[in-house]
């Protein structure tokens, strides 16, 4: 009886091993396919989060159809020519119907200085300023479907171009403030951004693999945990909560400065919007 039992166990073990081998082979193929993409997402030793993702997640990002972020891009395309507000204008009225020509590269240079207010302004705030000043429409709410769609669409138009934010001259003080945010300890756990993303990338924090935090070229991205597209500021808030700090509001000055620093950390990396991460 025991012998028989052992035998069948052995057969089952063999089957499991076979299935395991097939799985390994499959992920091996995925890894080989992604090797080329990986070298693209590394510039001067700066590695995008793509390097720290599962091969399966990267496969989703690489296939434009499989990538659920493209649903937001599609909605962005529809919003581009939708008339809204008292001025009776749409984005296309000023920027032209073919956004691929007029808006390519725009994403890579934000956040930028708004000369009127003397403050730093990121892409979401720029879109809303356009809506209020030029279209006489209501600004979109942060993390609303519309704002995420439009931001994702604008980011998508610059896909493949290197990130290139300006950090000198008039912007320098904001950059320094952003850098200070990055190195500032916060929360009950008394941790700064740098403790994970500069000191310990590639190591595990419980079940999660820490990335280098080169997020500037990837956000807004589709996060599997959120099951939707989210902005960089939502990610900041999540990180802040994890170290048990009180997060700032999305769009807060502190976050915009931090965004500039994070995007500077992503300098030279090609835009991946909409990226897919765990």
């Amino acid at each position: 009886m025991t012998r028989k039992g052992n035998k069948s166990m052995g057969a089952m073990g063999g089957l499991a091993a076979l299935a395991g081998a097939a799985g390994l082979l499959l992920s091996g193929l995925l890894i080989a396919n992604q090797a080329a993409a990986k070298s693209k997402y590394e510039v001067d030793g700066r590695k995008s989060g793509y390097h720290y993702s599962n091969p399966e997640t990267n496969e989703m990002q690489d296939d434009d159809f499989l990538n659920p972020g493209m649903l937001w891009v599609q909605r962005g395309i529809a919003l581009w020519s939708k008339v809204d507000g008292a001025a009776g204008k749409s984005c296309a009225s000023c920027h032209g119907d073919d956004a691929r020509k007029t808006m390519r590269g725009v994403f890579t240079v934000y956040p930028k200085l708004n000369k009127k207010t003397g403050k730093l302004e990121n892409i979401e705030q720029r879109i809303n300023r356009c809506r209020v000043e030029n279209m006489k429409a209501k600004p979109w709410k942060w993390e609303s479907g519309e704002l995420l769609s439009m931001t994702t669409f604008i980011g998508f138009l610059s896909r493949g171009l290197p990130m290139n934010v300006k950090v000198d001259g008039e912007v320098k003080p904001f950059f320094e403030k952003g850098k200070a945010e990055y190195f500032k300890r916060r929360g009950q756990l008394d941790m700064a951004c740098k403790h994970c993303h500069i000191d310990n990338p590639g190591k595990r924090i419980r079940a999660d693999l820490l990335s280098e935090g080169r997020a500037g070229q990837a956000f807004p991205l589709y996060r599997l945990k959120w099951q939707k597209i989210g902005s960089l500021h939502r990610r900041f808030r999540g990180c802040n909560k994890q170290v048990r700090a009180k997060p700032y509001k999305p769009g807060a000055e502190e976050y915009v400065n931090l965004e500039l620093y994070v995007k500077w950390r992503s300098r030279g990396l090609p835009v991946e919007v909409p990226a897919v991460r765990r």
Partner: protein
Amino acid sequence: MAKARVKVPGKAKAGEVILIKTLIRHKMESGNRKDKKTGQKIPRHIIDKFTAKYNGEVFFSSDWEGGVSANPYCSFNCKVDKSGAFEFIWHDEKGEEFKAEAKIEVS
């Protein structure tokens, strides 16, 4: 607002097996989550039936349950013999239907 995306090859040879990819934006609320503020369960709201038709004839359909993720992706094969139109229908639990169409030329 176009919610669904489908990808069907524009041309194919008679008897060829083609791959069809579909994707739709839907929150697929599982019914197991709670509203953090009120503590009340969020009622279930999912797509429960997906049907694919070719020239009016159903050739693929599937029933979906609460475990299907948000923004579901579904791909499947179809053997095509003559030119025609595909119709894809996602049926929502609340009775709403989302549709998408695609055409194929078979030589």
